[in-house]
């Protein structure tokens, strides 16, 4: 009997410890990124690092300004949102309210499959198909803000579609019926009652999509051109924070390497902010729901 209680207690302890693993992981990740990245920021100068517009790690003296890359990340993310969000939300509306059942059985797994394609395949496809298309039709090198926006727009589709669809499905049917009974068409009932009622869920989908686009690396590095500059037109190349890390980590040393880690820290902080706002949206909608 006593042995049994001991075993019960011991295993409960083990389960508890495994549950702490995610806390430990986040803590260790934070600590290691910050202790490796923050001193570099201090050495370069926080202001020069964030707002500096010259990235020349091999110059003497070297410059480490990542402002152009921060702007590039924001631009690429915005481009992906402009392409992915309208198509994604409308597709979610179609799936939730307009799709005939037999078609749904094909279309739904198809959108999930889109999420399964590895980013390297997206990048390769973008490089071989989207980049030449842009080069031939819009000029420039092809590897560009536009190319990255298109491919990322497709990549965030499954996230936007999946999360929005479940938000739309969670809206009580009575709103829809109420609008129909007033003589509204099905389309008006959906767009004027159901979609507004699901707005916090749809917003969460968009925020999640932003997070994915901001953090995407392999697809972007192959198709964005990687020039450190603020693009002035859609066919200009740019280099995101993520691309900077992948491109130079392999051969960097000393302060250069630390500056790359600090780049990662900046990205990490962005993502943490997004996760936080995500949780704020969630708890708000729980309170109101």
């Amino acid at each position, binding site marked *: 009997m006593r042995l049994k209680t001991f075993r019960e207690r011991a295993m409960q302890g083990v389960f508890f410890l495994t549950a702490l693993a995610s806390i430990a992981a986040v803590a260790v990740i934070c600590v290691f990124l910050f202790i490796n990245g923050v001193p570099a920021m201090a050495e370069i100068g926080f202001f020069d690092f964030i707002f500096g517009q010259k990235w020349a790690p091999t110059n003497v003296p070297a410059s480490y300004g990542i402002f152009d890359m921060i702007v590039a990340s924001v631009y690429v993310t915005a481009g992906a949102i402009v392409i992915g969000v309208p198509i994604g939300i409308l597709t979610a509306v179609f799936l939730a309210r307009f799709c005939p059942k037999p078609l749904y059985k094909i279309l739904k797994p198809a959108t999930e499959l889109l999420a399964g394609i590895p980013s390297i395949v997206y990048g390769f496809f973008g490089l071989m198909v989207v980049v030449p298309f842009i080069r031939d039709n819009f000029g420039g090198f092809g590897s560009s803000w536009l190319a990255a926006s298109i491919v990322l727009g497709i990549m965030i589709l499954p996230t936007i579609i999946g999360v929005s669809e479940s938000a739309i499905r969670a809206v*009580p049917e*009575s*709103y829809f*019926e*109420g*609008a*129909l*009974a*007033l*003589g*509204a*068409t099905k389309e*008006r009932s959906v767009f*004027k*009652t159901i979609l*507004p*009622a699901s707005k916090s869920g749809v917003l969460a989908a968009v925020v999640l999509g932003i997070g994915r686009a901001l953090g995407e690396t392999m697809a972007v590095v192959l198709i964005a051109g990687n020039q450190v500059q603020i693009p002035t037109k859609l066919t200009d190349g740019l280099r995101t924070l993520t691309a900077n890390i992948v491109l130079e980590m392999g051969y960097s040393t000393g302060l250069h390497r630390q500056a790359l880690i600090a780049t990662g820290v900046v990205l990490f902080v962005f993502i943490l902010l997004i996760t936080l706002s995500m949780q704020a949206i969630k708890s708000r909608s729980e309170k109101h729901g």
Partner: protein
Amino acid sequence: MDKFTIDNMNLYYGKFHALKDVTLHMPKNKITAFIGPSGCGKSTLLKSLNRMNDLVEGCKITGDIRLDGTDIYGDMDINVLRKRVGMVFQKANPFPMSVYDNIAFGPRTHGIKKKSELDQIVEQSLRDAAIWDELKDRLKKSALGLSGGQQQRLCIARALAVKPEVLLMDEATSALDPISTGKIEELCLKLKEEYTIIMVTHNMQQALRISDNTAFFLLGEMVEYNSTDAVFSSPQDKRTEEYITGRFG
């Protein structure tokens, strides 16, 4: 004059024969009540009158249903039909928006954009639903914050705002307290001067209090249809008598 005519109507849910050969003519500017035990088909019949049953998968209707002599299952625009035949649901279903926007939803749907006109419709509808005084200072507040009785009267006002000819009420008071119920019954008596009201009710006292005609349903069959006084004082069918004296249901 008959507002709604139903002739030889049958309705099936999949294999289930839910309404059997119903023939029923409902006069204008009267309150017609459908009574009967749960599952007898009375709500189903009501929903056939504004084609809300079209949303139900596997629902099949045969027969002939006419509004002012026009076949509502023919080439009548379904949205126009629903504008002419308003509905109040069993459970109040205000939209998650302000009181004002709830009422204005219908008029806006039908093309009214002018603020002054909308203002006037909102006020008139709320007055007609006898809830203006309670809500006039809360027009911009969310409708979800109202009490159950207020929500249901708001839904009535919302239905009135599109100026329907017929008002369908599907057990509209079943979830409400006696005071709210009383207010809505009073309202119905006032509204029948302008509208034709068809209501489904569980509550026989309610049918007796406010309806002009009553139809009794049992197991998908319309057993008896007559003036309310006649149905309750001298039922022709034994099953009707058993039901209203509380023998079953």
